């Protein structure tokens, strides 16, 4: 039974990967193909591009991703708790409260550190 449930997802994954490929290939076949050096240049408001875009970027973006990872992992751990919550006593609430307050403390720390300010 469990295997069948996931078999659906597996087949859907295969089919949904084919679905976008078909129109893309059709577009490739039906559309004109007349590349020229100017056309296949990287677009940049009409001026010539200097260098490529694969450069170092601001660390700010990385900080947000880091904060997200911490939150996401902790929240993923809360899902089993939420499912079983109805059958557990008040202790389950206290335990989760401590866990969620840890998240809150983390948020306050990040906030005070100024990591949430967009510079």
């Amino acid at each position, binding site marked *: 039974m469990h295997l069948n449930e996931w078999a659906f997802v597996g087949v859907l994954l295969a089919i949904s990967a084919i679905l976008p490929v078909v*129109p893309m290939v059709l577009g490739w076949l039906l*559309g004109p193909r007349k590349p020229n050096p100017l056309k296949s240049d990287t677009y940049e408001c009409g001026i010539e591009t200097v260098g490529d875009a694969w450069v170092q970027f601001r660390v700010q973006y990385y900080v947000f991703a880091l904060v997200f990872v911490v939150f996401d992992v902790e929240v993923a751990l809360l*899902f089993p708790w939420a499912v079983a*919550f109805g059958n557990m006593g008040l202790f389950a609430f206290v335990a989760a409260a401590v866990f969620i307050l840890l998240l809150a403390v983390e*948020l306050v720390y990040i906030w005070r550190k100024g990591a949430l300010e967009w510079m």
Partner: protein
Amino acid sequence: MLKEALIQAGMQPGWAAFIDIFLGVLVAASFGMVWVLFGIWVERKMAARVQDRIGPNRVGPWGLIQNIADALKLLTKEVIVPRNADRPVYFAAPILAVVGVILIAAVIPFSPVVIGTDLSIGILYVIAVGAFGVIAVLMAGWGSNNKYALLGAFRVVAHLVSYEVPMVLALLVPVMLAGTMSMQGLVREQHIWYIFAVPVTAFLFFISSQAEVGRAPFDLLEAESELVAGYNIEYSGMVWAMFYLGEFMHAFFVSILFAVLFLGGWSGPGAEQIPFLGIVYLMLKSMLVYFVQIWLRLTVPRVRIDQLLAFNWKFLVPLALANVLLMAFLFKIIPTPDFAGAQAIATNEFAGVAGGIYRLFGPNQIAELPRTGLLLLGNIALVGVTAALLGQAGRRARRQVEALVDETDYTPRAEGAEHTAEAPAAAAR
């Protein structure tokens, strides 16, 4: 059903199961694509009406098949690939953008019997699959080797990833109330729509799902006015259309998810008996959500990136944390509804008026009513506290600005000296 019929007809059970799954997959996968053709028309018509235009009205009655004409046009357009692009990544991105959205269709419960597959971890699956979109956009930005596209992709890391936190925190609450992560379970346990019990959670989910889809006012990742088109700037023809398709399907699937989680999904009068009615109810509810979504998109201006992130981390996330804690506490102290007792009253022929009322509104709904009311009170209290805190923060910010203004001396020094160079000098100091 189909599987049994095929086995009856003398087919191998394994093959029968495969054909059963395969047909289900085809329906689930093409449902979104077919709907998009209609959905884009609805959206264009609505956008036109809001902006005092008529909208598509040439191709077919009321312009209904305008989108098919557009799709055909896109097919005949040249696919221009920039010379400097990283081709494998460049072409994998649009495929991934569509795959991630279609995979959501697997767990959407259309009616009591029509569902792709009722996974026991349905909600978690939706969150996991939803992350495909972020990777797709990042790949598109990186693979294009274009500075605008890469800037758009960087914003995605900050933006999509940030709004996933309040969304996941909001999803905890319906899971907690229903005690299950399966989508069918969530619909069945929802005797009274969760939007009445936990409106704050519904609000959090709606806002953050709008941001996840990346539509206005949160469409920073493709802000035309500053990033030209953002991550999909180097895409053209049918390859570009895949991003468009993915976005529209995502927007619609998010409305369906909202309808399932907070508006009771397929439930409605007679839905258990006639499965088709369930599909109709779900579609009506999700179209309502979709309408609100388009309305928001057409009337609210785009926010700046710092406002966007501050709104998420300084308002939505703290609110979501407080909301989860408060709901968990209330859920624990409110006694569990007496479903068996209500059922007994409803089936008791001698209960008189009470029995009649219980039968009319459904015993489970009546039993659920006190809990819904108490949770709603808790939500109203939370909204009140939030509003008070916001007001305080607003006043503090205003005082800071006023203090800054007071420090600056705009008044001219001597009488009759308004037009000398002294006044601007004082202001600059």
